[in-house]
């Protein structure tokens, strides 16, 4: 009985140790790819975020992560601010993938690559585009856009 109790206690302590270790590692600085890179600030009609193959409805206040794909329905619109103060807003039937996003808030430098497959996108560029010419790029099926600043728009239309 005493032994069983001791074993149970030992097991409990061991498990607590594992749990604590798990909690500790979860509160350490996450890798850059796991950090939120933006926030959804405005949604009209249908809008969704495609993340790891899963489509979830976009809600005001949701965070955005690198590799997310922004989608809007035929009546949809979405407005996003990024941590470098770049602002994206997309009109209906749009699909835009955030393929790369790096930003150092100490020196305001970084790099961003967005891939636009269809729809309309209005942009007000932020610190990344300001840090160096060519740091921010948007690709479309036919050409690549390099951003020097600040306010511009892109439409991708026609069939695949």
């Amino acid at each position, binding site marked *: 009985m005493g032994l069983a109790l001791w074993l149970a206690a030992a097991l409990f302590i061991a498990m607590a140790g594992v749990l604590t270790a798990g909690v500790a590692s979860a509160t350490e600085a996450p890798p850059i790819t796991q950090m939120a890179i933006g926030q959804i600030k405005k949604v009209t009609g249908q809008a969704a975020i495609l993340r790891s193959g899963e489509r979830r409805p976009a809600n005001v206040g949701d965070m955005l992560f690198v590799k997310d794909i922004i989608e809007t329905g035929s009546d949809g619109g979405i407005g996003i601010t990024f941590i470098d*103060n770049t602002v994206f807003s997309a009109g209906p039937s749009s699909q835009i993938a955030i393929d790369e996003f790096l930003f150092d808030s100490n020196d305001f430098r970084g790099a961003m690559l967005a891939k636009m497959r269809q729809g309309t996108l*209005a942009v007000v560029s932020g610190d990344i585009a300001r840090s160096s010419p060519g740091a921010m790029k948007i690709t479309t099926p036919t050409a690549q856009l390099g951003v020097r600043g*600040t306010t*511009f728009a*892109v439409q991708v239309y*026609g*069939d695949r």
Partner: protein
Amino acid sequence: MLLLTGCPRQALFVVLPNAEGGGVGAITVEDGKTVTTLDQPYATAESRAGSTAPSEETQGNISVIFRSAIAARPILPHHFRLYFILGSDKLTPESQAAYRAVFDDVKQRPVYEIEVIGFTDTLGDLPSNEALSLARAAAIRDALVRDGLDRQAISIAGRGKRDLLVPTADQTPELRNRRVEITVR
């Protein structure tokens, strides 16, 4: 709109008037063969199947094509500077009034993120200025939280005397360097 089934993908690029009221920006469009630079408001280029050329699009057409995308634009990020009394984390009287403008700006936004970075002038040693700059940022955060804003949405940092707004010699009191820089988005 312009969904032409059966056509290859095409793209339209346009420079818009600066939404922040500053100078006109510029974009480049590269298709592997040519580089087209657009640097005037409402200048446009079209690309299709590996060929890009500047195009003529009326301001009216541009407004129609991008109406929904521009309507979806959230309130743009805004920047503020507040100044402090020498050696203190207390705002100057002028900046106490300016603080209200920061608060009012935040209140317009359905959701918000706030970044507060503290700075000092060059008076005093490095460690005490590091601490003071962080204390200034924390004081502003605490005021915003007292006024009802979400603590989770506010990040703070201190840069000590490493990042002067106005370059001075060491050990120089300078009001414009005793500041926090606030970004609201």
